């Protein structure tokens, strides 16, 4: 892909002092917690947004909150940029470093500190993976609700940074709705505790600001999250349609009728073919669009809710209805959906968009997306969280063909502008990162961004925290 998105120019004062910085950081960290050799740095040069890469100056892998604080205190003293990194699964380049940056990785902060069923909370270090939390409490009948597709790998710290969602957040909300407290290290090494096991905390809603701040306000070292009792049962049902528009209007009507299933996922024909070939989930192959609707509760509840949903689907010309008959079948249906990105990666390079639109606009935006992609001679597979309007068009291209890559980026930008113009936003759960940074002025006026940047500066006046991300490089306040 052409190097169109610029990073901040590296600070010469930092690069020139590289050896001293590495040596100083080594003094602050235990043995084996600092990576500075060229080969060791390679895994940290990009994340799941592989179109860009930069080798960082060094990578710190602290084992304690105090070590995170020591590294940040040092970096702020010398104006060294810092890029926080969870598992590196960002789809927007949130964890891609810059060449003068110290990456602070969370991988060694991987302990579950406290599980409290009476208060239904778990307190974990930030490097614990999303799925680890649910697995730790599953046998006792609980789970942690946000479930991004990368949940096997992604960390809770990264989830907080990006305010991650997932398929099941239609009912349970995204990270910000499930986060009760954090221990966070500020840019200068100050450690603050926000929230806790109580449902709300005193003063301004700083937790709400931190969630989704993409590593620009501080580094979360510990988090307290809500646990939820697992439903008695859950049943995904497949609804096949002969057009994407019909499926889209069906979704709008389900939600409009006041029915909130746990999840409504959408796949168009290319996505169905890709996922079925990979997961053998039993998806119908003779339809143009597929909805996976999951209901949960007791058998009686699921039957009642499904009856209403089926009635609506019939009004929209549903051609196939297939209920999962066993837990294995249900797991396969979700495996197919959650492996969509990985399975797509097997057949082509792709960029994944993340715009969110009001439900009433779904059919229109799907149609226009198809037109944009066709005009540029590319292919698209749509697989996304339809219930909350969070679209994920995967634009397929060849990363080794610069012209193809440029067209893919152009298509992506047009699609995101389309989402904003339809009353939506650039990103529902992947974050702005580096990828969508330069589109921010399409969604926000300058004055809106200035206010956000001013608040950002209240946390990090030196702009050392993940500074190349989120806000356009032009028009920033002087640090």
């Amino acid at each position, binding site marked *: 892909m052409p190097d169109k998105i610029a990073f901040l120019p590296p600070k010469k004062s930092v690069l020139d002092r590289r050896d001293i910085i590495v040596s100083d950081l080594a003094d602050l960290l235990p043995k084996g917690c600092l990576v500075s050799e060229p080969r060791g740095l390679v895994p940290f040069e990009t994340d799941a947004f592989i179109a860009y890469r930069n080798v960082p100056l060094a990578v710190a892998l602290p084992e304690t909150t105090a070590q995170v604080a020591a590294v940040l205190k040092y970096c702020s003293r010398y104006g060294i940029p810092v890029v926080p990194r969870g598992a590196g699964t960002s789809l927007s380049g949130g964890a891609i470093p810059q060449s003068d940056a110290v990456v602070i990785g969370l991988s060694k902060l991987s302990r579950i500190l406290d599980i409290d069923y*009476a208060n239904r909370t778990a307190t974990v270090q930030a490097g614990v993976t999303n799925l680890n939390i649910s697995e730790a409490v599953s046998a006792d009948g609980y789970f942690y609700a946000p479930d991004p597709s990368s949940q096997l790998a992604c960390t809770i710290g990264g989830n907080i940074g990006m305010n991650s969602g997932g398929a099941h957040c239609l009912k349970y909300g995204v990270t*910000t709705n499930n986060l009760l407290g954090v221990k966070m290290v500020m840019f200068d090494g100050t450690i603050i505790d926000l929230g806790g096991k109580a*449902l*709300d905390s005193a*003063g301004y809603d*700083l937790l709400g600001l931190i969630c*989704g701040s993409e590593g620009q306000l501080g580094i979360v070292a510990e988090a307290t999250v809500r646990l939820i009792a697992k439903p008695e049962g859950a049943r995904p049902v497949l609804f096949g349609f002969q057009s994407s528009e019909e499926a889209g209007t069906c979704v709008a009507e389900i939600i409009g009728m006041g*029915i909130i299933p746990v999840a409504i996922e959408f796949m168009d024909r290319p996505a169905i073919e890709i996922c079925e070939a990979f997961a053998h989930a039993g998806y119908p192959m003779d339809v143009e669009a597929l909805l996976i609707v999951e209901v949960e509760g007791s058998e009686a509840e699921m039957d009642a809710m499904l009856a209403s949903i089926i009635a609506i689907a019939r009004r929209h010309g549903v051609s196939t209805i297939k209920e999962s008959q066993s837990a294995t079948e249900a797991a396969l249906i979700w495996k197919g959906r959650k492996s969509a990105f990985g399975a797509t990666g097997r057949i082509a390079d792709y960029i994944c968009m993340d715009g969110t639109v009001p439900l009433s606009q779904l059919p229109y935006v799907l149609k226009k997306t198809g037109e944009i992609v066709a005009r540029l001679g590319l292919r698209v597979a749509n697989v996304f969280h339809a219930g909350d309007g969070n679209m994920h068009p995967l634009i397929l291209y060849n990363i080794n063909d610069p012209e193809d890559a440029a067209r893919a980026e152009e298509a992506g930008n047009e699609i995101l502008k389309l989402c904003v113009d339809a009353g939506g936003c650039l990103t529902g759960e992947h974050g702005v990162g580096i990828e969508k940074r330069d589109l921010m002025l399409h969604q*926000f006026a300058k004055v809106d961004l200035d206010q956000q940047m001013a608040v950002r500066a209240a946390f990090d006046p030196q702009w050392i925290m993940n500074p190349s991300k*989120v806000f356009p490089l032009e028009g920033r306040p002087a640090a």
Partner: protein
Amino acid sequence: MTAKAGTPLADIQDALAQKRQMLAFEPLDLRPVLGTTGNTTIGGVFATNASGPRRFVAGAARDSLLGVRFVNGNGEIIKAGGRVMKNVTGLDLAKVLSGSRGNLAFLTEVTFRLLPVPETSATIVISGLDDAQATAAMATALSMSVEVSGAAHLPETVRGRFLGGALPPEPATVLRLEGLSASVTVRAEKLRAALASFGAVSTIDPEATDTLWREIRDVYPYADQTLRPLWRVSVAPTAGHQLIAALRLETGVDAFYDWQGGLVWLRMEADAEAGLMRHFIKAFGGGHATLVRATPALLATTPVLEPQPEAIAALSARIKSKFDPAGIFVSHATPRGMAGRP
């Protein structure tokens, strides 16, 4: 739904009721407790993050708020957030404005999420539990997959004030279920069976359920036409009754519990006892207390809001200066702000 901030809450609720929609966070109305009148506005609801019993499952006002338009201290008109549920485009300024009590900016427009009104509801009552047993019973109920949407404990001193005295004798631990009627029936049965070992179990109908939870929401027992100090305390659910037990050894207090025991409304006999209160909150794992009502003399001498640790107070002051450099939005932080007026 998008509304101008000055729209009366009552108008919004009327419009929503016609479409069988609602604000899931059940905004509370403290006018009866404060003895105030006037129109609650939707802007005030969000500015105070005023959230009722369903908060512990459906989130607070801040969780329903999708986007805002506001005027900052420089007179600039700014928008933040948007119209869609999922949105991580930039910093979530709507969150920090929600609950900021008009101290950062002037909200002019709010966009928020709606949920359908449940088809029906029921309340399971367990009678005769003390505060500690009630906390255990509520934790049991919430460990089950029955989706309890309200969990409160009404000790004997307040029980008679609810539903015009119609709750069964003895302290009442109340659990609300909502949803499709077939589903509520099944879940109520499961809940009754699981809680029978705690005490006598009874069920109240949807109409009385609506009234009861409105009375819990609006702190009905303490709408007593007095200015006796009233605290709103938010702690971990299992800490609420410990806090009350500790306070009782020191002073005269009356209290009841919402949010599974984590939201405590407590009325002091005479003095506000702020020092004692904050000492015990820390001792039982942290949280915060707001003095919602007191005599003018007490209000003038008591820190109404929970004092913040130094680093957080300094950060909050920096954030304030970024919205309002000249400090024109003066926060009196008075309990009146809780009534839902911007």
